[in-house]
């Protein structure tokens, strides 16, 4: 279905990804499209009491009932966005979250139902920064919410009134998401306090990586396209992957080797072949071998499958329900 859409020129990329191709579509275990409110309108029209929806834009789920009832689009969508995380935009603590939204013809009011907590202008207006590229515009299926002209007023000490939210309809697109699998990982982890390694972690890293790759090629007979080795130095640059400021010297390094291959068995075999070097390799040839610090034996840890998001694309549809399936279940009749 997605391949047909692609062939029809109805799939566009969202940067930084490039154009979609059939090979990427084939690699996905599963592809879902993000629904807007329209499938919910249809379910409500058909008399549903409870709707269990698949992947949907969070604001759309909340705005759906109001929009279905004819509430103005700008305030409804904006209210849906503010309420998507419950009381997060209020002074409520975790675990005591909830938000009451009242939508009027010109705007909406937001207030936490719990009497101890309050909505304030800063919290309510800040929520558009959350999980969104721009603080001013939010792209949704079928259009864009623009809050640039909004005014936020502290109506009571616990209620905020928002006016000026604008909904700009656009040609209907749905974002598609998909993950690929097919690779597996095994880990090796050692602690290192050897001062020669700590003095030049990147030299150590590059030497170790080169030795491990050579070892895998000679011991197992694989070529470089059949496996990946990634070394992460926790305590130095494991998180960033970048060179830290000059003079950075870690107290210790947690060296994690991530070995990736197309089966778990092969990833394990690769890690096992690498183990002696991972265990003993000094920073350069000719100096005494070290023994780095394992926390347990045996060293190899099956990490399991690699699930990677590979889609960041939108598909154009002629009708918001074109890609949606709805099943009605009469619970009473089933009993």
């Amino acid at each position, binding site marked *: 279905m997605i391949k047909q859409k692609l062939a029809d020129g109805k799939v566009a990329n969202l*940067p*930084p990804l490039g154009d979609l191709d059939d090979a990427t579509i084939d690699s996905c275990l599963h592809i879902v499209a993000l629904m807007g409110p329209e499938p919910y309108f249809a379910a409500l029209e058909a008399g549903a009491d409870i709707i269990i929806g698949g992947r949907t834009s969070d604001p759309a789920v909340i705005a759906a009932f109001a929009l279905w009832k004819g509430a103005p689009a700008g305030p409804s969508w904006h209210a849906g966005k503010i309420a998507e995380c419950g009381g997060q935009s209020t002074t409520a603590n975790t675990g005591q979250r909830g938000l009451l939204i009242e939508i009027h013809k010109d705007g909406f009011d937001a207030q936490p139902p719990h009497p101890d907590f309050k909505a304030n202008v*800063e919290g309510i*207006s*800040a929520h558009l*920064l959350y999980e969104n*590229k*721009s*603080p*001013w515009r939010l792209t949704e299926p079928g259009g864009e919410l623009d809050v640039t002209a909004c005014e936020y007023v502290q109506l009571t000490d616990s209620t905020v009134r928002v006016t000026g939210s604008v909904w700009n309809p656009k040609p209907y697109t749905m974002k598609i998401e998909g*993950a690929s699998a097919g*690779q597996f*990982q095994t880990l090796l982890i050692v602690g290192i306090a050897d001062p020669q390694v700590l003095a030049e972690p990147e030299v150590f890293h590059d030497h170790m990586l080169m030795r491990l790759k050579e070892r895998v090629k000679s011991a197992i007979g694989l070529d470089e396209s059949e496996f*990946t080795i*990634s070394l*992460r130095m926790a305590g130095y640059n*494991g*998180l*960033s*992957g970048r060179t830290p400021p000059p003079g950075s010297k870690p107290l210790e390094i947690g060296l994690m080797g*991530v070995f*990736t291959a197309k089966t778990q068995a092969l990833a394990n075999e690769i890690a096992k072949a690498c183990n002696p070097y991972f265990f003993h390799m000094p920073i350069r040839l000719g100096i005494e071998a070290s023994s780095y610090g394992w926390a347990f034996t045996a060293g190899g840890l099956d990490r399991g499958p*690699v*699930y*990677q*998001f*590979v889609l960041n694309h939108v598909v154009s549809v002629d009708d918001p329900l074109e890609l949606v399936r709805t099943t009605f279940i009469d619970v009473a009749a089933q009993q």
Partner: protein
Amino acid sequence: MLHYPVPSLKVLKISYPRPTSQGGVEERDLHSGQQYTYLLDLELG
């Protein structure tokens, strides 16, 4: 890297794409939870 000043909140929002596909073989910060730390020393004029 995109910069969005929000004067009413005294906030500067900075958005940039992740360096690798989420969950891939080279993933270091799956939820981008620690990315904000690289911005803490930015001097705002």
